[in-house]
């Protein structure tokens, strides 16, 4: 559930919000409906990882990966797929950490409540 909420909102938000909005989306979504720390991190990680991969491919496939290939050479990587995976990993880590933060913050208030 958490996974899908973050995934959908991250993709939808990408058209109007800055890239770091993914963190806020994951954070708030985790506050709303995360259960455990592990579930929150991996949902956030997986959702943003996949969202970013889809968004990148959405631009890169019609481009025949011309640009991603050039960027892979710029960073001395073997091919464009590495750039894609690194991009998705960065998104994933940010999303995972944000979701984890969300659930941990939520737990602080749960105790008080």
């Amino acid at each position, binding site marked *: 559930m958490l996974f899908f909420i973050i995934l959908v909102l991250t993709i939808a938000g990408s058209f109007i919000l800055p890239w*770091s909005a993914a*963190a806020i989306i994951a954070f708030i979504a985790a506050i709303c409906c995360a259960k455990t720390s592990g579930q929150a991190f991996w949902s956030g990680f997986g959702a943003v990882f996949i969202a970013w991969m889809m968004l990148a491919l959405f631009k890169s496939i019609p481009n025949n990966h011309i640009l*991603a290939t050039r*960027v892979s050479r*710029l960073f001395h990587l073997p091919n464009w797929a590495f750039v894609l995976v690194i*991009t998705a990993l960065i998104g994933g880590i940010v999303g995972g*950490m944000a979701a984890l*933060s969300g659930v*941990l913050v939520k*737990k602080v208030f749960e105790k008080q409540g």
Partner: protein
Amino acid sequence: MKIFKAILSVTITIALIWLLQTKFGDIPPVGKFLNPVSGFWQNAEGNNAFADENLKLTGLQGNVVIRYDEHRVPHIFAENDHDMYYAQGYVTARDRLWEMDIQTREASGRLSEVLGDKTLDVDRYHRRMGMVYGAENAMRGINKDPQVKAAVDAYTDGINSYIHSLSRKDYPIEFKLLDYAPEDWKPINCALLLKLMSETLAGGSDQFALTNNLKHFGAKVINDLFPDYPYNEDPIIPEGTKWNFKPLPIPKPSASFLAQMTDSITTPGKKEDIGSNNWAIAGSKSANGYPILANDPHLHLTYPSIWYQIQLSSPTVNTYGVSLPGAPCIVIGFNQKISWGVTNVGADVLDWYQVRFKDASKNQYWYNNQWNNAKKRIEVIKVRGEMPVYDTVIYTHHGPVVYDSPTQQSGGVGENVPVGNALRWIAHDESDDFMTFYLLNRGKNYDDYREAIKHFTAPAQNFIFADADKDIAITPAGKFPLKFKDQGKFILDGSDPANDWQGWIPFEQNPTIKNPERGFVSSANQSSTDQTYPYYITWKFDSPYERGKRINDRLTAMKNATADSLRLLQGDTYSIHAQNVLDAMLGYLDPTKLSADQLQAYSVLKKWNKRFDAGEIGATVFQLWWNNFYRMTWDDKFSVKNTRLLYPNRDRTVKLLLTDPKSKWFDNTQTPAVETCGDIVNIAFAHAVDKLVKEKGKMNINWQWGRVMHTEIANLAQLPGFGSGNFISGGASGVINAISGSNGPSWRMVVQLGPVVKGYGVLPGGESGNPGSFYYDDMLQTWKDGQLNELLFLQYPTEVSKRIKSTLILTK
């Protein structure tokens, strides 16, 4: 505990985002750059990205229709000139914004603002050379001319209209990599680009080195080895042409004196072999009876391409050609009636004057037997992440003292005599060069051509011309200072008014020729005229004569030529240099004394067709052999530690080889034996073959010229992966097809005049400056193949053509 965990987690997340947003050294902000929302992925253009578009823009007066062809060349149709230049600015920025930005930053010494202190020296150099000062003066000329001012202003508005429409995700990828934002365009940026061209084409000087030569060897040797006219020459204005004007009195030579040594000045030397070709044949030589014109300007090639193809049409003009991204109008091109092109002249329009200051304050300098006030200009160089650097540049009436070096003087000698050199440079003068292109774009005949080029100041160009009235012409045009012979060959005494530039050669007396008997006009950066021309332009033009000679030989023989004949000539790789020296050099070799490898190389050379084609092994052996011969002849005398000397050029070396084999210059001063020409030729040959065998093994495919010459078009910012990569190519600097390493034809064009004009052309790259575009390099293969695209010259906005792929309509 839970609170601690929560705070820790939130802190790590925020720190992570901050890290991903921040640039460290040369590494771009990773998150900002890689994220697919606003990072580089957004710059990936789809192959169907160019659907029809309608845009509403403020500042337009009417509607503009822009039609894009299959190479994404924009064909602009506007209802008035203002909108046409506005649209030119808009579409150029859309394709080339970063290129425009970085080039104006380079010209104006503002790279460090975005790149940090590693470019501080480059910035300081450009500031101290007076690039901004020159651009400011150019703006004065532009502002006096209402038509040009209107064009520059409209062009600027168009660029800014595009910049203002951008959000971060739309920025060209280089802005994202270097992590900065585009800034508003200013009219002076257009002038700065011209200054950059002046720097490339007329910003070098051999004066220091040659002055050192004079001290080192004495006048007799210098006059012998550095003559004022080449041994081999085939001038642009045919030999024997009569000058039908009464020249102005030539200024008297001054009692000049040698300047102090100034070895650490970093002005580059004049490059031999930088250059270009253009020619036009008369109707008498063409198949359809009308002239055909060809031009290929050679420059250091880059991605994005140096030139931007465009068609400009309004009620006052309809013209097609290439423009400089960042400047209005078309620089090389054609319209229905005329066609024109340029090559560099290489006139001596940059001179150094030794300055004597009164005291350490450098407020006054000695000139015309009195102390004169110097001006000071403070240059503020902003540096990314650091405090700005303040640099004071002293200006005499000649220009900026680019370098003043009391700190360089060792041992306390001359510490009270601050010595520097002031720069007198044509690029500092008020000018209105855009007027030339403004008028050429609208030109209809020979008179219009002459009127147009009258306005050109610098860098002086050989303007070639052909029209539908069947006239052809060529004129080295630009402002040429009136000088005594060899004025500026060596550093000049800045205190003596007799050393100043004494006015200008009148435009009407610039070398020019119209419809010569031989049926063609041409130039390839060789001498403008023979020695009968009454004025001094320079002691050495840009290039030796070989390309010009080959062009003239071929054009002389040409009959019933078509555009394709001229296209083939642009790809010609025959070496006149090899023709001149190869037999003489082979004559010194004794085949019976050669090793097996050498004998093999010898027989390849014997059979070599003297062409620098990609597959020729002879070209490789010859080039290496000649380079060795040249270096072995001069190195021991001209490579002196801590002193920059100028080597004698190729032409003088050829003369020595062919006419003076016992010359003392062939003797290697570092050996006890006395060598002659034959000895050097033999040693040079043995070394060349040894080197090839050592590096590439016994003669094999890797000896081929195309595999030895490293040809590559690099990205303007040298970004790996953003260039063309290494490719195999024929060509050489001394042949017509002057591809040589990363230098070569930056635009090839052939125009067949006639009742209906037909243009052909190709860029080594593409229209788009976006490495993520299909149009970044879509023309490279055509260029490599030596082919040209037929240029789509539309006559009206709704003209039907299968080649039109999309339409962009701009409305107010």
